[in-house]
Structures are given as structure tokens and as C-alpha cells.
């Protein structure tokens, strides 16, 4: 699960000479929020986001309508893009979670991914959410159970043993420290093979663990 497996390859890109209004149109029409700005050979020069295209009203305050329309039509991407040290990128070879960390730390919604120094793809917060949904098994049918267990080695094995002994499969899931209950761990699993009652009945048998949610 590396960035290169989950990024969008061949992102829509624009040149620095593109009009800001055209960039705005491209984003709206394709329902996207980020556009890498590239020169020859897809070399990354900058990044345009929806916010970057906002013209602060204060810039327009003193202008009349003709001046405003002229100003807007003269605006080019190269003057408005994120560039230089503000432009944060990544390589395809890092893990998804590391990319997520960078995005959180930098408070950004998108990372252009460089391959051999040129744009090979883009990964955004939407990709991260899609990835989360997939990890949790959002795209498959099944029983979703949350089990609270002591935060000790061997506890999850008990769960998987039970599931395996019934011939069921795990199609997604994850784990987290139990909120407000130190020393416990919440595991979420998407299980296929048995129905809700069967799954609950089987997992209830595990001593020291508790089913806190099932749906």
C-alpha cells in the first residue's frame, strides 16, 4: 500500500501560461480541486488549488467593472500558483500513511507525486478517504463488528481463529486505542460468510472481549 499504487496517474495538468479563468473552468468541469502546473517534459513548476484562484475582494474594491474584467482576463496561472518552497511533493515509494502524515502536518489537501523528477501522479485527501473506505471494507457486503479487547498480544488472534474456524472471511477492518478506556483496543472487522446473529454468537464466546457495535 504505497502512494504509487493509490495515486491518480496522469492527472490533468496545465501550463503556467494558462488563463486563470480557464484553470477555473477545467476544475469545475472535471470536478477537481488541484491542478499541477507543468513545463516541458511534465516538469513540475507549481500547483493551482481552488483557493489560489480566489481574487481577494480588496484587490477589486477600487476598480470599475471594465477594469475588473480586464484584470481577471489578464490573470495567468503562473502568477497565482503555489511554488518554490511552498510546493510540497512526494515520491511514489512512500507509504500511504506517511503521505497522510505529511498532508496533516502541512495542512494541505494534495501532494503531487514525482517520478524521475516529473509529475507521475497526484494524491489528494479524496484519495485518502477512498483508501480509508476501502480498508474498512466499505465496498463489500458483510457484517461489520467492533470488538473491544484488552490491549495485549494474542487477543486479535483469538478473533481470527474463531472467524477462520467458521470458514468466514475478513474483507476489511482496522484498529484503534479504545476512546477513553486506557489499556483497551477497539478492532473493527468486516466479515463475510455468516449473518449477523451467527457472527455475534460466535464472537461472544471469546472471554474478556466485548462486542460494542454490530451492523
Amino acid at each position: 500500500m504505497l502512494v504509487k499504487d493509490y495515486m491518480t496517474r496522469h492527472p490533468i495538468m496545465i501550463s503556467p501560461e494558462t488563463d486563470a479563468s480557464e484553470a477555473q473552468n477545467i476544475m469545475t468541469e472535471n470536478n477537481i480541486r488541484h491542478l499541477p502546473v507543468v513545463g516541458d517534459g511534465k516538469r513540475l513548476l507549481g500547483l493551482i488549488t481552488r483557493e489560489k484562484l480566489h481574487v481577494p475582494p480588496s484587490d477589486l474594491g477600487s476598480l470599475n467593472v471594465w477594469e475588473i474584467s480586464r484584470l481577471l482576463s489578464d490573470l495567468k496561472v503562473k502568477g497565482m500558483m503555489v511554488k518554490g518552497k511552498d510546493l510540497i511533493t512526494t515520491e511514489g515509494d512512500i507509504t500511504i500513511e506517511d503521505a497522510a502524515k505529511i498532508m496533516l502536518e502541512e495542512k494541505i489537501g494534495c501532494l503531487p507525486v514525482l517520478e524521475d523528477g516529473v509529475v507521475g501522479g497526484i494524491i489528494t485527501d479524496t484519495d485518502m478517504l477512498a483508501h480509508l473506505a476501502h480498508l474498512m471494507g466499505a465496498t463489500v457486503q458483510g457484517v461489520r463488528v467492533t470488538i473491544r479487547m484488552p490491549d495485549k498480544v494474542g487477543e486479535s488472534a483469538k478473533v481470527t481463529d474463531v472467524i477462520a474456524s467458521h470458514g468466514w472471511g475478513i474483507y476489511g477492518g482496522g484498529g484503534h486505542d479504545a476512546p477513553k478506556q486506557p489499556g483497551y483496543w477497539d478492532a473493527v472487522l468486516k466479515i463475510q460468510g455468516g449473518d449477523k446473529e451467527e457472527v455475534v454468537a460466535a464472537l461472544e464466546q471469546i472471554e474478556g472481549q466485548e462486542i460494542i457495535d454490530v451492523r
Partner: protein
Amino acid sequence: MNNLKKAPPVLILEDVAVAYKIRGGEIEAVQNVSFEINRGETHGIVGESGCGKSTVAWAVLNFLGANGYVKRGSIKFQGQELVGVTGEELRRLRGDQIAMVYQDPMQALNPSMRLGDQMSEVLTVHRDMDKKEAEKRCIEMLERVYMPDAANVMNRYPHQISGGQQQRVVIATALLNNPALLIMDEPTTALDVTVEAVVLDLIADLRREFDTAIMYITHNLGVVARVSTRVGVMYAGEMVERGTVEDIYKDPQHPYTQGLMRCVPKLGADKASSILYPIRGRVPPPNNRPVGCVFSPRCDYVREICHNKRPELLEFSSGVSVRCHFAGEIEADKWSPSDDILPPEIITDTSPREPILKLDNLKKYYEVQGSSLKDILGLGEQRYVKAVENADFDLPRGTTLGVVGESGCGKSTLIKTIIGLEQTTEGHAEFMEIDITDEISTRGEDVIKELQMVFQNPDSTMNPSYTVGQQIGRPMKRFSTVPKDEIRGEVIKLLESMRLGENYYDRLPRQLSGGEKQRVGIARALASHPNLVLCDEPVSALDVSVQAALLNLLLELQQEYDTTMMFIAHDLSVVRFFSDQVAVMYLGQIMEIGPANAIYAPPYHPYSEALLSAVPIPDPSAEQKHIRLEGTVPSAINPPDGCRFHTRCPRRELLPDGGAICETEMPPWRETAEGHRIFCHIPLETLNTFDPVITQKPEGSNHVS
């Protein structure tokens, strides 16, 4: 897996019309074409020649030439309008994001530049990469496209590698920039089937790995079925049907698509799958398209409204769209052929008939001139191209022998030697009990009259200043088979049996279409009522709907006159239906020969097995064994010792020591009870255990994981 993210298509064409300005006006080569291609998708565009497939591709790249332009509609690439984009912007898109691969790799390669230099230029110029690094990248990419000995290929010139390898270089070059869109226009049409199979596998891999959107143009329905996810069918400048490959092949809606499916051989389990039903008529040129529905002159379902009103594109809930007034009402499986396109019934006469042609270890070697000083002085050892080796079989009167093999395997040389255009090197040939081992100048008129040939390219053998009537009448006059005053009548009769009609009598070759010319070629070959007709790929240059008509016609005449026929083809699908016997050649050697029904089922010769596995079948529900041959066909100058196939044979491992014997000893002929002969060291018992190459996929194999 269900994908939660929905990325916008890479390419969207909306209602595109492309026109070419010609003297005194313009023609709309393409009209109302709309489709989109997603990332990681191969979208096929299929149709016969002149239907506008390439025009669509060129429109995307704005490569329409000085006289062509996009007249209406919009072409959006990655959200950006391409129509009207020129200069710097266009150059950048073409260089960095859209790449194109043509049928002829030499169109993209510079003959006077080392391959390594032209490849790495893409990186050094566009990306400022330093030369060393660029070369390393190129070698890696060549390895990705399975180029044998990639580093070495970098130092060669284009003419020093084979056509299949050239095409791989072009594909590798196209991929160096990791384009978002790859347009391929008949990229494997010029390649042999076994090479084509490898290139098609490669294309499927690349799409997955690089998430490239591919527009794949071809006239070959089998190729589309193998590589594409969706397909658009073009006819006379319009996209008449579009949908997923499964939907379109299983249940075609448009009468043209239905017709196309019926005129290509399927190579299914039974012989019936190889019966061909032609579509009457031919594709109209762009300046002469009918009003109303463009397909109306050829359509079996035409009604009044079709002549007056252009059908709109109808979209079905399945996602299939069809441009026909009666889409959804026409049921392909209720169709039955009308009399004029009914294929002749094949009478399989099993009673033994006396051979009309007997070949006894026939050999044809060509001397080759080396280029060293020693060779020029004549002191070097004489070298030979061993084009035909030990051809040895009898051809019973009134039967048809199909000869199959890839280019350069000696098929044409074999029939040229029989007809006397080439001098036999060794062995004997006997025709109607007359020795015809020597070339044509030594033969009597009676032999020449009885032995005729149909060529692949009728142009090369037709005198451009003779009318059709003269071309066909000439052999009648020469051999006095028809009294002088009856020649005209006889020619017209022959024309009619070719479905050409009297009005063709005075036409000149240049006034004929390719299919019509080939009909004249066949009529001329049959004019002297020969006993044996040798056909060298007579239909492979023609469109499929025309091919089917000609094959059926040829067959009908052959049965009517009880003619014996040898028919050359480059893959096993075409000859199946009408051949009594089939021979498979490799590198000058007949590897397998036998009754047609025996060739398509085990036991197979290992080479025939590989050929069957390579042929693209226009049926997505057919499953083929995956056998790919490594390397290329060795040179016929120094063919491998022992079995000529040993350098590529995937089956020799079945023999002791990995088939060491194949490298040194000529194989024996293995013969079955029904007269099926296989030239291989592997014993029949083992050959018999091979699974059939082609099977039907089980229904509803859509498994959940």
C-alpha cells in the same frame, strides 16, 4: 473491485465531424462521432477500410494534413479543448501526454539513426536528462516491452531488427514519457500472428501498469476482443454502435455489426463456426453516401424510413448505443442468409480420388551472394536460402489444400515452384502424370492451361490498359478453350458467376475496387477451366465483408468445375471451413499435414498448437491456451539443424534432456490412422495428451472473491 473514486475520462469526443477539402468542395470523412476513454481503458475502434477510423485518431492529434479540419464538435483531452489548439501548446501535448503508434513502425523511426539515439533523444531534449541516464532509462523500457538483448538493440539501426521488434521500439519510445493517452492505429496489422500475440499481451500489461488510456484502431474483430474493454464500430464515417466488448460481441444490435460478426471465422469448437456470410455490396465513399441511414443499401432490415431519415443514436440501459431506427427490435439470432449470400454447401466426398499433383521431396533453395571480398570473388562457400525443404504430399483431384504459415515460411515459394515460376532445386513434381519438375518455359501449353494461379495483389498481374473483358478473354483465346466468336459470351457468363455483370466488360482495372479486381483475377484464372488453381492469399488485402463473399464464390466455382485448389493463408482460421486438407509450414518445412478436421484438435504439432493459441478470435467467450513463442523466426539461410522449430519450441521439454535430440536430428513423421502426419520427435501417444487450444468459457464465471 468496486471503485469509489470516479476519475473524469481522459478523452471525450462530442459530436465530432471531420472534413477534408478536395477539389471542388469538401467531404465529411467522419460525422457525429462521440465517445470517451477512461484512464486505464483500451477503447477499440473497429471497422473496414475507409470508414474513418484513422481520421478520428488524426483529429485528436490535429494531424489532419493541410486539407483536413475538425468541422464540428469538441475533442477534450484531460479537460482541455483540443480543437483549435495549435503551436507550442499542441507540440507540448503531443510530446508529453499523447503518443501515437502507427501500423508501419518505420513511419516513426529514422532509418539513418541508431535506435538508442532516437529513443534517448525523447528524454534528453524534452526533459533535459543527461545522456547516460537517458540511455539507462531506454534500456529499461526496452526490457519492459520484452525486447531480447535490449542493450545491444540500442546500437543498431532500424533495418537491423525485425518488424515486430521495430514495433516494440516504437511502443517503448511512446511510453518513455508515460503518456496519458496512447493512440494505436493498426499497430499489429503488419505483424505475423505469433508476434502479434506477444505485442497484444504487452499492450494489455502496459495499460494496467501505467494506467494509460488507449485508443486502439483495427479492422480485426479478433484483436479488439483480445485487447479492449469497450469498442466502437465505425461504418461510413459514423460510429454505428458502441458498448462493452462482451455486449457487442454477444448481442450485436446494429445490422452492420451483426453482419461483421458473421463474416469473420470464429475458430470455435465445430466447423460451422468458420462458415462465412458476406455483407452484400461495399462501403460507399464519403462523397457518395446514401441519404437517410448510411447502411441502408446493404441492410437486410431496411424499410421506407431508412431511406429518408438519418437514425439518431439510441442508448440502451446497458450502456450500448446504436444508430439504427430499429435498434432493439432486430434479433440477430433470427437472421437467416438470403440466397445471394448463402455460402456453398461443402460436399465432403470421402471416396478416395486419384492424386492430380504429387510432390516428392521437393526442394527450393535460392543462392545468396555474400558481401565479403571472398564471396564476391566467388571463393567463399556458396550459401543458400532454404525456402522449401522436402515438400512431400499428394493432392487428390477435386480437393482443397490449405497451406498456413507466417511470412517468410516458404508458402509462396512452394506454389511458385509448382507453377513453374521458380526452378526446383531437388526432388520431383508430377501433375496429371506429367513431370513438371522443371520451370515453366519447358512446359507444354496443355500443362500451363490446366495450372493457374490467383495472386494476393491483383494489380501486379493485371495489364492496366486492358479492359476487364480482354483480361479474362485472353487465356480463352490463348488456349483455344472457347471458339473465338463465343469468347465474349463466355467471359460475360464468367463475370456473372463472379457477380459482376456485363457492364464490367469494358471497364479498366483502375475503375474497379480492390474486391472487384480480385474477382476479375479469379475469373481470369478460371477462364481456361484449369484442373489446379493455386491461390496465394487472394483475400488477405480485402475488407472482411468482401473477403467472405470472394471465398464463398471461389468455393462455389471450385465445386462446380471440380477444380483442385491449393490455398495459402497466414493463419489457421481462414482455411478451416473449405479445406479438405491443411498443411502447416515453418521455415520452409511442412510441419504437419492432414485432414482439416484433424488439424484443429489434438494431436497437434507444437508449432500448430502455438499458432492456434496466437490467432485472435472474435469471440470473448472463447478461451485460448496461452502459448507464446520466444524470439523470432531464424534466418532461412542457416536454418537450425535437426528440427527447424527447436529454437522456439515450447514442447521439447517433454523429451528426454530437454529435447536435446531436436537440435541434432531431423524428426520422424508421426502418422495417425486417418492420414494425419506430424513432423516431431514427440511420440503420438504424448501429442495425443495435449489439451485442445480453444475451449468455451464456462457460463457465468463472474466469481466473487
